[in-house]
Structure formats: structure tokens, C-alpha cells
């Protein structure tokens, strides 16, 4: 069995600040981590390594320093990792990103002559929060997809997936190959052993640029991104409301009416 995990390096904060001038995320001074949901996607893949002896390949699209999260993935048990990095990939929206990742997956499959049975993604990245890349990869690949997965096992050539829903959960079967996006699950993630860290330090991580991948330049980076960000802003915090209290509802109602008139709401 052969599985692949898409991961992203993200700023270690859930309180992203936005530069009011450039409307972009302020990343300076914020340490980078492996996206939280991706750690669960990786764990799901590694559980298949434990149970099915699956080979686990990890890819990440990003800057050269994203190799850190790929090494982290290797330190907990991933077999190999590739960085997808090229200046021409910069500025990609989810469509261009998912297309680039899809072409990378196909490139790796062609080069090795082996198909990936399952492509795992985290449910969403905690910096962009779109939750679109996983499903878009499934569309590009023409594969079945299951989102909000918490548990995955393989039986009779199908992925049996426990999927979180608003009301509880359901268990779905998907034909392989498929794409599964994983959400937080109620189990402990595995940790890196000392030997795992050493293996990761010594691992060669190949960088796949577009010179190698040869993806249509019209479909990558800014050019391949139909999404245009008009404006990003931090919503102003609302001031605390006024609480009227007293024993006489009539008098309080009158006071409220007066305040609304003063504020020119009425």
C-alpha cells in the first residue's frame, strides 16, 4: 500500500494579524509549525503504515524552510518527503495550489511507477482556513473524497472512514484510490523518538521545482489563481453594550427609547 500526505507549514498562532497596508498575513516573529490538522492526517497515514505496512510519502508546497515540517514528518515515521518549491508557485490560491499538488502527485506516481492508494490532507490550514485544497485535489484527480475524517482503515480494497458530522458521525466506504481530509481526532499523536529525529536530520529531501514538474505556467502561482483578494482587514471590536437594570420595566423601556432616539437609531 502506498499513501501520500499533503502538509503545510503555517504560523504558530490562531490569532493571525494582518498588515493593514499590504493586506497580507504578518509572519515575522511568529514561529512556524506543521499545520495542526495535517498532523492528524499524517497520524492517519502512519496508522496505515502500522496496520497495512503502507509506505508514507509526504509533500509540502512552500518556501525552502518548509523542509522543517517535512523533516518533522519523517521524524515521526514518514518514509520520504518532497518539497514543492519554485518562485513561479508563489501567490497561488487554493485552485492553483491544488493543481500544483495534483501535478506533483502525478509526477511522483509516473516517476516511481506506483499509484498512491490514498491521498491524505488536513481538513484545512489554520492560516487560510479555506478547507478547499483537499477536495480540489480529489476533483483534479477524479477520485472519490471523504472530508472530516477521524479514523481510516482499509478493508477489501476500500477505505472505511469514520467521518465527523454536526450531529455525530457516520462511517463511509470509499473506493481506492481516494482523497481523505482529516480533522482533529480524539487520540494521542505519536511523538518523535531520538532515532526518528536523527533519521529526519539525515534525510535527503528533494526539492521539486517547476523545471522538474513542468506544469503549465498559466495554471500555477498568481497567473493560475482566479481568486483576487480585494481587501483583508481585522474587524473592529464592538464596544461593550449598555445594560439597563431596574425594577420598573416601563421606566426602563422609556429610557431605552430615549437612548435610541439620541443615537438617531429611531
Amino acid at each position: 500500500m502506498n499513501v501520500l500526505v499533503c502538509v503545510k507549514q503555517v504560523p504558530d498562532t490562531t490569532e493571525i494579524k494582518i498588515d493593514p497596508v499590504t493586506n497580507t498575513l504578518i509572519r515575522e516573529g511568529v514561529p512556524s509549525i506543521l499545520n495542526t490538522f495535517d498532523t492528524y492526517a499524517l497520524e492517519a497515514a502512519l496508522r496505515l503504515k502500522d496496520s497495512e505496512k503502507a509506505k508514507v510519502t509526504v509533500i509540502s508546497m512552500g518556501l525552502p524552510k518548509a523542509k522543517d515540517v517535512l523533516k518533522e514528518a519523517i521524524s515521526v515515521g514518514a518514509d520520504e518527503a518532497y518539497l514543492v518549491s519554485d518562485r513561479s508557485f508563489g501567490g497561488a490560491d487554493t485552485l492553483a495550489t491544488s493543481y500544483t499538488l495534483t501535478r506533483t502527485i502525478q509526477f511522483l506516481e509516473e516517476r516511481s511507477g506506483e499509484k498512491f492508494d490514498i491521498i491524505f490532507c488536513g481538513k484545512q490550514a489554520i492560516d487560510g482556513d479555506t478547507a478547499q485544497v483537499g477536495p480540489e485535489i480529489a476533483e483534479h484527480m477524479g477520485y472519490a473524497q471523504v472530508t472530516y475524517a477521524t479514523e481510516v482503515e482499509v478493508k477489501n480494497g476500500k477505505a472505511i472512514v469514520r467521518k465527523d458530522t454536526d450531529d455525530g458521525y457516520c462511517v463511509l466506504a470509499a473506493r481506492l484510490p481516494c482523497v481523505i481530509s482529516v480533522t482533529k481526532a480524539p487520540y494521542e499523536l505519536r511523538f518523535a523518538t531520538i532515532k526518528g529525529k536523527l533519521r529526519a536530520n539525515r534525510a535527503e529531501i528533494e526539492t521539486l521545482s517547476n523545471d522538474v514538474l513542468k506544469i503549465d505556467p498559466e495554471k500555477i502561482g498568481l497567473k493560475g489563481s482566479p481568486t483576487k483578494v480585494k481587501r483583508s482587514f481585522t474587524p473592529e471590536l464592538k464596544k461593550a453594550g449598555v445594560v439597563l437594570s431596574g425594577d420598573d420595566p416601563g421606566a426602563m423601556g422609556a429610557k431605552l427609547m430615549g437612548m435610541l432616539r439620541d443615537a438617531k437609531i429611531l
Partner: protein
Amino acid sequence: MDFKLNEVQLAVRDAARTFAEKYVRPRIDEIEKAEEFPQDLFDVMAEMGLLGVPYPEEHGGIGAGYVATAVALEEIGKVSASAATLLTVCYLPLDAFHLFANETQTEKYLVPGIAGEYRGSFAFTEPGTGSDPKQLTTIAKKVGDKYYISGTKRFISNAAYPGPMVVFAKETENEQCTAFIIDKFCKGYSLSNAWDKVSLHGSHVYDVFLDEVEVGEEDVLGAHGQGFDILIGTTAYGKLAFSAVFTGTMGGSYDMAVKYAKEKMHRDKPIAKFPTVQSRIAQIAANVMAAKLCLYKAAADADEYAGDIRKIQCSTALIKGYISDLAVETNVLALNVHGAYGVTAEYQVERMVRDSLVAPNIEGSADIQRLIAGGYILRSKEGYFDANF
């Protein structure tokens, strides 16, 4: 001079830091109050590879040497001296096996010990002696091809867990001190309740009563009469390990004192602005630096002079005596930065002080360390310590 850790040492430090910060720190209260150190945390420690840091890869260890071992213990000691002490007392029998076990014993004890399959024990101390084999009262009586060990061992860690225990006893036939490996909870093995003590609440010690515990020739560790060498050889590394634990407590209390000094307001300004506080912080920082330099030098000696156990013992005794006293002084200084809050459990620095109180009295007292080191230095023609290093 390069103080940077190498790649392997960094990997060990990172693992120890992750273990301490992610797994131990959230459960300190539980560790301090539980009757035993939680098994699941011990399992994490083992799985990470921390039990095997100094031992060869061929036996399942990391083969990272003693600088890496010291760094790991220091990292854990910063957060919990009890957790670091657990690792240290597990190293003691493992060091004995690593240094003195034959091939069969290595497979039987060292390999599963590194894998965390048991928590081993090292039993020399008795009610009447802590360092002198001549004073041992535990005896091994030979009957046929068996030995029957009887006696009382004091302050023994991990005694309430199954697994091997290295026991030192005087052979009745010839009065020589020999180390035997017994299986805890075998026939004739019993133990007291855990000692109630001021330090290391998460690390439990017991008295062990041995009543005609039967062992065979295959359970002799090293050679007959080699007990003293085994004691010296093993505790040479034990002194280093405990020095690392208490250097860790100093680093932990230093971090707490600096944080408190910056946050605690007095007359509308942080107390960090007051000269007396600055002076105390500087003293603590200097002590931490001194302890770390001593620790790493002795650890580097342990790596460099492997095979020359007396040279290593001189070096580790020298720093154990020094760091033990320095840890108490430094942690009290850090507590005093906290004022009256320092003695409250909420601020944790009191735990560092309490835990370090045992430093001058564990693994050989600070006084005897100085006697050991001084003796080596003055008796030896070669000079065990060279001030021109």
C-alpha cells in the same frame, strides 16, 4: 572554544525537552502526589529512546555518550527533578550491566532495560553504610552451587517494580564484596513502605529486605570480589547523572526567578528594576553557568576517558560535590527573589529548593565526593585533575 552541541546531542536534547515540557510539565502535580511515577510517562520516556542515550546502538541504545546524557537529564531536571531522578536511577543498573555484564546477562538485562521493559534497581546502601563496602552487612552464603543472600538495603529506588536488582553482598566464604543480580519479588524479597521525605516526592525509595534470596553462579555480575570496582564504575556515572539533574533544577529556578522579577510589580514598576533583585539574578545566572560548565566538562571527560574509570570518578566526584551545594544555594536565591510567594506551592520554586536539598546527600554525600576527588588528586602521581586543561 565551541559550546555547540553536535547533531546527535541536539536530537537527544530536543527529545528530552519535548518529554519534559509536553508530557511531564502538565502532570507535575500528579507526579508529586502519586504513589508511583505514572507508567504511561515512563513508557513515553522509554519509547523516545531516553533510557538508551549512553548505551551502544547494538544493544538498542542511542550511543550518544555522556554529554548527551547529561544534557537530557538537565532538560528534564529543569521541569521535574523527580522525573529526571527516575531516569538516573534506571541508568544505574543499566550502567552496571553495560560495564560489567557478560554476553548472556547483556541480552537478558541491558537490552530489555534500554527498551523500558522494566525499571531496574541498584542496591548498595544499607542502614550502616552508603559508600564503604567494608561495612556491608548483607551476606551471600554459598551452599552447593547456589548463593543465598540476606540483609537489608536502604533507600532503594524502583524497588516496588519487577525486574532485576544489582545487589552488593559480602561472600561469607571469603569476605569479598560481590555484585549479584536478583529478580525483584523473588522468594525471600520484601520491602518497606516508601520513605516519606522532603525531596523528590515523585521519586520513591524503599528499604528492601532480603531473606535467603537464592541466586546461581550465572547471576554474579562481573567477577567474584569485583563488587567495589562495580560500585565505583557505576556510581562514577551516577554522580554525573545526579549532577545533571540538580544543574537542571538550577536552570528551572533561574527561569522562574527571571520571569517573576519581570512580572511582579512594586511601586508601579517591576521588581526587576531594583538593584538587589538584579544582583540576585546575576548571582543565580553565574551559578547556573558555573554548574553547566562543570557538568559538561565532566561529561566530556566521561566520553573521552572511557575505560579509565578512576579518572572519570575523580572528575564526576569533583563536580558532584560542588554542584550539590551550589544547587541548594542557587535555588534558595531564586526562591528569595519571589519573596513570601516563593514558599508557596503555587510558584513551584519551592519544589526546586526541596528537591535540591537531597543533592548533597544522594549518590554519596557532597563531603565524601570531595574526599574522593581530593584523594585522587593528591595521591596520584599522574594527577587526576589538571588545572591547565
